[in-house]
C-alpha cells in the first residue's frame, strides 16, 4: 500500500483497496525474464495484440454508421467514404489494420516456430496460437464479406461452391453458410454476427488466455544450440536462467514491445492516410455480370491454388488439405515437445518456413497477375499491333479480324497484350505449321476449346493465314518435315537458316 498523501494517491488507494489489482499486476510486470529475450525478435505477439484492440475500436466506430443489411450495406459504406467526415479514414484504419494484423500474426507464428517456443511447457500456448491464427483469417474473410460489394458477393459464391463439394451434407452446409438458398440478406446478417460477435469474442478470450500463459510460463528463452529441452529439467533450468541472468519484464523487455506496437499503429495510420480505404467495389447486384471477382490480398494464394489443381484432385484437396494442415500445426508441439530449440540445429524447420514463405509468395504473386484468367475485354480493347499487319495480304488482314472477333485474344497475347491463359502467339508460326494450326483451331484440346463449329472454312483459312505470318523476321515459319526433306534435297543453293531451327515441335 503506497503512502496516503495527495488527492491522486488517495483516489488510487481508494480504488486499489477495492480492486486489489496492484499485487497481480506488479507480479506480472516485474517477473524476471531471461535477459536475452528482451530482443526485437520478441515484439510481434504484443503488436498483434495491440492491433486487435485497434480493430475492436475502429470496428465499433464503423458500426455507428454501417448497416448490416444486404439492401443498405453498400450504400452505408459509400456514405462512410464520401459523406461522414473522416468516415473514409476510419474504414481505411480498419482495413489496413486488418492487413497488418494478419501479417504480424503470421510473422509472430514463424518467429515462435523458428525459436522452438512451442516446445514443453508451452504446447498449449502454441495450440491457442494456431486457433488465434485461424480466427484472425476468419475475421479477414468475414470482414471482406461485410464490405458488401461484387468481390464480397462472388467470394461468397466461391465459398458456397466449395461447401457444395462436401459429400452428402454439402447442400445443407451451403444453406447454413448462406442462411438460405442464395447469397442474400440472411447471408450478410450471419457474416455480420460472426465478424462482430462470435469470432471477436472467442478471439479476445483466446488471446487473453494466450497472454496469461506467456506470463505464467515465462517468455521463451533465446534458443542456444546445444541447450536441449527436457521435460524433467526444463522448468528448473528456465527459472534458474530467468533469476540468475534475468531482468524484470517491465521495463527491461516491455519498452521494445511498446515502441514496436506504437510504430506498427503509426504505420497503419500512415498507410490508411496515403492509400485510403478498400472499396467498396461495384454494388452487390448479381445481375451485373461484367465483373472479375478477386479475393483480398491474404486469400489470393488460395485463388491461385484453385486454378492450378488438376480437376480430379480439386475436391479432395480443398476439403482435406486444410484439415491436414491444421492437424499438423496442432500436433507439432506434441511431436516435438523436447529437443533442440535453436534454428542452427533444426534445418528442417528452417526449410519448411522458407518453403512455405516462397510458395505463399509465388502463389500470391500469381494470384495478383492471374495468368489463367481470360482477359474478358481483350478481343475488343487490345488492337493488333500495326507491325504484324504492315504489307499484309487481304486474307491475312481478314484473319486478324477473325482472331479478334472470335475472342482468341482473350486467352492469347499478341504484342504483349491479351490473355495469358494460352501461349502468346507472337512467334507461333515458328512452332506450328499451317496444317497443325488448322487442326488445333478446329479441334482445340489441351485447354483450348474447339472452334470447328463456330468458324466457317473461309474464316479458318484466313485465321491460319494470319497466324502463319506470326514469326520474327529473321526466323522462317515452321514447315512440314516431309516438305522440308523435299526442299533440302531438291533446292539448289544453300538455305540461310538451318533446317532444324524452323522444325516444328
Amino acid at each position, binding site marked *: 500500500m503506497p503512502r496516503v498523501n495527495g488527492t491522486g494517491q*488517495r483516489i488510487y488507494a*481508494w480504488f486499489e*483497496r477495492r480492486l486489489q489489482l496492484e499485487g497481480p499486476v506488479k507480479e506480472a510486470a516485474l517477473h524476471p525474464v531471461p535477459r536475452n529475450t528482451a530482443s526485437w525478435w520478441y515484439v510481434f505477439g504484443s503488436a498483434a495484440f495491440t492491433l486487435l484492440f485497434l480493430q475492436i475500436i475502429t470496428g465499433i466506430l464503423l458500426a455507428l454508421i454501417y448497416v448490416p*443489411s*444486404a*439492401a*443498405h450495406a453498400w450504400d452505408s459504406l459509400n456514405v462512410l467514404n464520401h459523406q461522414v467526415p473522416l468516415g473514409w479514414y476510419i474504414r481505411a484504419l480498419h482495413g489496413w489494420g486488418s492487413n497488418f494484423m494478419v501479417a504480424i500474426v503470421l510473422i509472430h507464428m514463424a518467429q515462435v516456430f523458428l525459436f522452438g517456443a512451442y516446445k514443453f511447457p508451452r504446447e498449449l500456448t502454441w495450440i491457442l496460437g494456431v486457433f488465434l491464427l485461424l480466427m484472425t483469417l476468419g475475421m479477414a474473410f468475414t470482414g471482406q464479406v461485410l464490405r458488401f460489394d461484387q468481390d464480397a*458477393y*462472388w467470394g461468397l*459464391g*466461391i465459398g*458456397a*461452391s*466449395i*461447401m*457444395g*463439394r*462436401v459429400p452428402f451434407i*454439402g*447442400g*445443407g452446409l*451451403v*444453406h*447454413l453458410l*448462406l*442462411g*438460405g*438458398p*442464395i447469397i*442474400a*440478406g*440472411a*447471408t450478410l446478417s450471419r457474416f455480420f454476427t460472426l465478424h462482430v460477435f462470435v469470432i471477436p469474442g472467442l478471439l479476445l478470450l483466446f488471446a487473453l488466455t494466450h497472454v496469461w500463459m506467456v506470463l505464467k510460463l515465462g517468455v521463451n528463452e533465446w534458443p542456444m544450440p546445444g541447450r536441449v529441452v527436457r521435460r524433467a529439467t526444463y522448468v528448473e533450468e528456465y527459472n534458474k536462467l530467468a533469476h540468475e541472468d534475468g531482468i524484470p519484464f517491465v521495463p527491461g523487455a516491455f519498452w521494445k514491445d511498446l515502441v514496436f506496437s506504437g510504430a506498427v499503429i503509426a504505420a497503419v495510420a500512415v498507410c490508411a492516410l496515403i492509400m485510403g480505404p478498400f472499396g467498396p467495389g461495384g*454494388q*452487390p*447486384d*448479381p445481375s451485373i*455480370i*461484367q*465483373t*472479375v471477382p478477386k479475393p483480398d490480398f491474404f486469400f489470393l494464394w488460395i485463388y491461385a491454388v*484453385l*486454378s492450378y489443381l488438376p*480437376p*480430379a484432385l480439386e475436391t479432395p484437396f480443398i476439403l482435406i488439405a486444410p484439415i491436414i494442415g491444421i492437424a499438423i500445426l496442432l500436433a507439432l508441439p506434441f511431436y516435438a515437445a523436447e529437443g533442440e530449440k535453436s534454428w542452427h540445429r533444426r534445418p528442417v524447420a528452417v526449410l519448411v518456413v522458407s518453403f512455405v514463405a516462397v510458395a505463399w509468395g509465388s502463389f500470391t504473386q500469381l494470384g495478383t497477375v492471374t495468368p*489463367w*484468367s*481470360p482477359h*474478358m475485354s481483350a478481343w475488343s480493347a487490345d488492337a493488333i499491333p500495326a507491325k504484324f499487319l504492315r504489307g499484309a495480304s487481304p486474307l491475312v488482314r481478314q484473319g486478324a479480324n477473325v482472331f479478334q*472477333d*472470335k*475472342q*482468341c485474344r*482473350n*486467352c492469347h497475347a499478341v504484342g504483349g497484350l491479351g490473355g495469358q491463359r494460352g501461349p502468346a502467339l507472337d512467334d507461333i508460326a515458328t512452332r506450328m505449321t499451317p496444317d497443325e494450326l488448322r487442326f488445333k483451331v478446329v479441334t482445340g484440346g489441351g*485447354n*483450348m*476449346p474447339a472452334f470447328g*463449329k*463456330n468458324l466457317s472454312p473461309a474464316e479458318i483459312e484466313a485465321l491460319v493465314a494470319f497466324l502463319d505470318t506470326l514469326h520474327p523476321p529473321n526466323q522462317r515459319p515452321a514447315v512440314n518435315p516431309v516438305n522440308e526433306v523435299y526442299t533440302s534435297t531438291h533446292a539448289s543453293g544453300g538455305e540461310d537458316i538451318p533446317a532444324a531451327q524452323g522444325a516444328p515441335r
Partner: protein
Amino acid sequence: MDLTNDEHRLTQNQDAPTPTGIPPLNELARHATSGEDDRVVSRRWLLMKAGIALNGLVGLALAVPVVRYIFAPWRKDSSYESWISLGAVKSFPAGETRLALFKNPFTRSWDGPTDNVACYVRREEADKFQVFAINCAHLGCPVRWFPQSQLFMCPCHGGVYYADGSRASGPPTRGLFTYDWKVVSNELHIDAGQMPTLSNSAKLEKPEIGEGDCTCRG
C-alpha cells in the same frame, strides 16, 4: 470527505471483525473450505450437484430450440424452389442465347439487389430451350457469353463452355448447370430458387429437356 480515515480503517483492521460485526471475507472463506463437519459438506455438495444437474437439464431443453433455430436454413432443395417466369417466349429469338433476369422466388424484403438472379436462355429452335445458370460449375463465378465465338467464358479461373453448355476447357469438371423449363401461356418458366452448386446440381446425367423432375435445378 473522510476518505483518509476510511482508508486507514480498511487497511488497519484487515483481520479484525468489522464494525458491522460481519467477519472479514477471508474469514468466511476459511469456514467454507474447512472440512470439519463431513455431513454438512456432503449435503452442500449434493445440493451443488443438484444445482448443476438442474442447469444441465434446463440447458439441454433450451438447446433444442436453439439448434433448431440455427439449422432453420438447412432445408430440402424443393422447399426453396418454384416455377418463375422469365418473360414472353418471343423475347428469346430462335438461334440466340440471351441473358435473362428474374427475382429469386425465395426472398426477404431486405435482400436489396442480391435477389436479382441472372441466367442464360438459349433458344435452339422454336420450341426447344436451354436455360443455363450464370454460375460457373467450378467455383460459382459469373460466366460471360460471347456470341461471336459461341463460348461462355469464366473470368475467375478460365473455365470455358460451348454454346450448348457443355464443358470446353479449363478447371470445371462438368457443363454449365441448367434449369428445368416449361412454356406456360407463351411465357418461359424455369424452376429456380437456389444458387446452383455441385451438391444440388452435381448429377452428370442430363435430364430430358423440359420434362421430368430435373436434378439440375439451380
